[in-house]
């Protein structure tokens, strides 16, 4: 859509929304949120941008093709799932946790990486879907 108003509004919203999405992701283990909703928020931010600035612009803004985020995210989730098999003698998906919590994020553990994988996959998948539709619409 060719409207300056939307365009400039969204260019300010985009980074803030991305920040918010990470926020939602990180707090998921303690409060409502998590990788899925976080990923959706991020995806929505980009979709918004695509609506206002056009798809090509949004694509050039994104460092990665969204299609690449899907396997990447799944790979992260996959590795966090099988890391107990590789590094310890525990069954898959066993939580591996750092001894002490770190600030902001809390305990660092494989579950967090898992959620990060979810986050990336959701961004990748949602964007792939929506971008594809927009392109062929």
């Amino acid at each position, binding site marked *: 859509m060719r409207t300056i108003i939307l365009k400039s509004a969204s260019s300010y919203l985009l980074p*803030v929304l991305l920040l918010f999405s990470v926020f939602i992701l990180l707090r998921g283990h303690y409060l409502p949120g998590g990788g899925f909703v976080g990923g959706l928020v991020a995806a929505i931010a980009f979709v918004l941008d695509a609506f206002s600035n056009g798809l090509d612009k949004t694509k050039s803004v994104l460092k990665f093709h969204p299609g690449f985020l899907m396997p990447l995210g799944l790979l992260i989730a996959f590795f966090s799932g099988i890391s107990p098999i590789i590094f310890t003698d525990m069954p898959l998906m066993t939580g591996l946790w750092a001894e002490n919590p770190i600030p902001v994020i809390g305990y660092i553990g494989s579950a967090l990486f898992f959620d990060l994988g979810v986050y990336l996959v959701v961004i990748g998948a949602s964007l792939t879907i929506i971008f594809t539709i927009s392109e062929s619409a």
Partner: protein
Amino acid sequence: MTDILVYITSGLGAVFVLLAAIGTLRMPDQYLRISVNTKAATLGVGLLLTAAALFFLETSVTTRVIAVIIFIFITAPVGAHLIGRTSYFIGNALWGKSVTDDLKDKYNKITHELKGHEEKKENEDETKSKS
């Protein structure tokens, strides 16, 4: 003290929201409805959120409330603008008692390009002649 503020903000907020709702129901055309609802609701919800911030009085809550309010204040008018112009595209007529429609025939039907230049000149002329 904060209790009273909570009463006031939440009460006002609710009233504005109610007004927006009634307005949306009553107003005779799309543009008026958009007009009424955007502000009343934005103000109303802003007040309601403020009430929450006042109630909790925690920085984390307050900052979050501010974030939401700012967000709403940015997005609501943009949304109104978008849906308003769309309404014009799809040919929703103005209320019968409307006095003027400067947008008439300004949109290119195919490209949706919006003319403005001639209008501006006209206006400038008027302004000049006035001063």
